[in-house]
């Protein structure tokens, strides 16, 4: 081929096996301390640690970040999508009995022990408020299965309207950046060549125009 020493055009087509590009993890990003985590997109990775590295590169390369969560796509339970003015909680099946313990019951140690024994875990709940926007973390609920988590979320967060779509994910399935690891997010602000604002050309253009009065611009309008 040339200076790069590339091979000549191949005679057979390239092919890739399934999983050549691994599976996917969904990424949630926190733009500053105290802000809710917001969905930013997926990464392809063979496992969670690699997914975290790729997510850090992909979603905080140029954006301020104070925290990152990654979770396997398969671990997210998803409701139906509804229109912009509706509530996705309305699409959940109605249950015969009230599945949600009153929020205040969590303060009762005995109730908490009973819940723990029943196999209840934390689930993170995310709401999409409008089609085209991104899912945002609204809080946690306790449940022993994803379907139940959605029902509990309905009781706890269902009055937050509109909600176009809900995601529920077992908290234990989420790999999160640690509070103690905030140094991960430190950037080098001295590298101004990456900032649009550090490029100032207008003075140079004005100086040039002052020294070279316009001679190149054709007359406006067509020549007839």
């Amino acid at each position: 081929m040339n200076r790069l020493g590339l091979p000549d055009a191949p005679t057979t087509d390239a092919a890739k096996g399934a999983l050549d590009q691994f599976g996917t993890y969904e990424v949630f990003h926190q733009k500053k301390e105290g802000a809710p985590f917001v969905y930013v997109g997926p990464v392809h990775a063979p496992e969670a640690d690699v997914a975290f590295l790729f997510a850090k590169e992909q979603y905080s390369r140029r954006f301020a970040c104070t925290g990152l969560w990654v979770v396997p796509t398969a671990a997210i339970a998803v409701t139906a999508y509804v229109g912009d003015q509706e509530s996705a909680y309305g699409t959940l099946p109605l249950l015969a009995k009230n599945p949600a313990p009153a929020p205040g019951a969590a303060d009762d140690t005995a109730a908490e022990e009973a819940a723990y024994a029943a196999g209840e875990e934390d689930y993170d709940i995310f709401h999409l408020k409008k089609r085209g926007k991104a899912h945002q973390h609204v809080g946690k609920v306790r449940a022993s299965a994803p379907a139940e988590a959605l029902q509990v979320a309905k009781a706890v967060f269902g009055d937050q309207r509109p909600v176009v779509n809900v995601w529920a994910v077992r908290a234990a399935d989420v790999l999160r950046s640690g509070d103690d690891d905030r140094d991960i997010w430190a950037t080098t602000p001295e590298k101004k060549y990456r900032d649009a604002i550090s490029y100032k050309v207008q003075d140079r253009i004005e100086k040039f125009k002052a020294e070279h009065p316009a001679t190149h611009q054709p007359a406006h309008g067509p020549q007839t």
Partner: protein
Amino acid sequence: MYGSASTHDLPTTAATGLENEDPILLAEFEARIARGEKIEPGDWMPGLYRKQLTRMIEQHAHSEIIGSLPEGTWITRAPGFRRKMAQMAKVQDEVGHAQLLYSAAETLGKTREQMLVDLINGKSKYSNVFNYPTPTWADSNVISWLIDAGAIVNQLANAKGSYGPYCRALDRICAEEAFHLKYGHDAVVHLATGTPVQRRMIQAALNRWWPAIMTFFGPSDKMSVHTEILMRWKVKMASNDECRNQFLDMYVPKIWEIGLTVPDEKLAKNEATGQWEFTEPDWEDFKRVINGDGPCNAERLAVRRAAEENGAWVRRALLTPKTQYVRPLA
């Protein structure tokens, strides 16, 4: 960044297939778009919508990763340390944009493996401008400024399109683009307002690239059935002619104000109509190049193929038995 309104395919009269779609679902789908709601991955969509969007987003992704090559080659030879770092940062971003766009296309059902294979095998297209070489640093600056500018015109339009994942990806891309355009303009201004040797260099580069820039938005798409449907579905947000005219309106004055000329004697704005007049590009030549017969097509694909082959052992080493694939959600 390097997205273009056309799908890099020349206009066809292919059937729409709409007569086979459920009329009630189709009506609901069109009503949703008409009232300004976005379509999300799980929604019902007509086959033509899915197919056109997949092709458009996939080609945009390929354009990002191929487009990084004519600029990437100048990283080590850009003048001065700061420009080397800036060009490297820009190229980093372009590759990142390709990742975002492959993910968005993937939500429509085509796998990344298939998209990458189609690129390497020459089956999927990318923006034709990248089939040309950058013989000097000034050529890479013309890309960084004017091709980026053209892509931004497209991206800003498409960001208002109907498909949620593509809109989200484009918002992210537009935010990262700001420094690219400034970097490109800064470099062109530096040369154009510099020494006589620098001015000649940038003018020569602009003369080489102008024909490709004029084809960037694709051929004129007089309202065909396809164009009309794609606009109704907010897949295509503006005609190729509208995008080209907007680009000329925004950038030809900026080219002229730094004393550069455009190698087209016909180029002028008709103040009465608001339309720029220009010499019609050679679309037969465009077709020849985009179908494989350009100066750099073989090299571009060979570089991608080499990268894929050289990296295969890493991907094999990382693969674990518990890896499973599920289509990304959004």
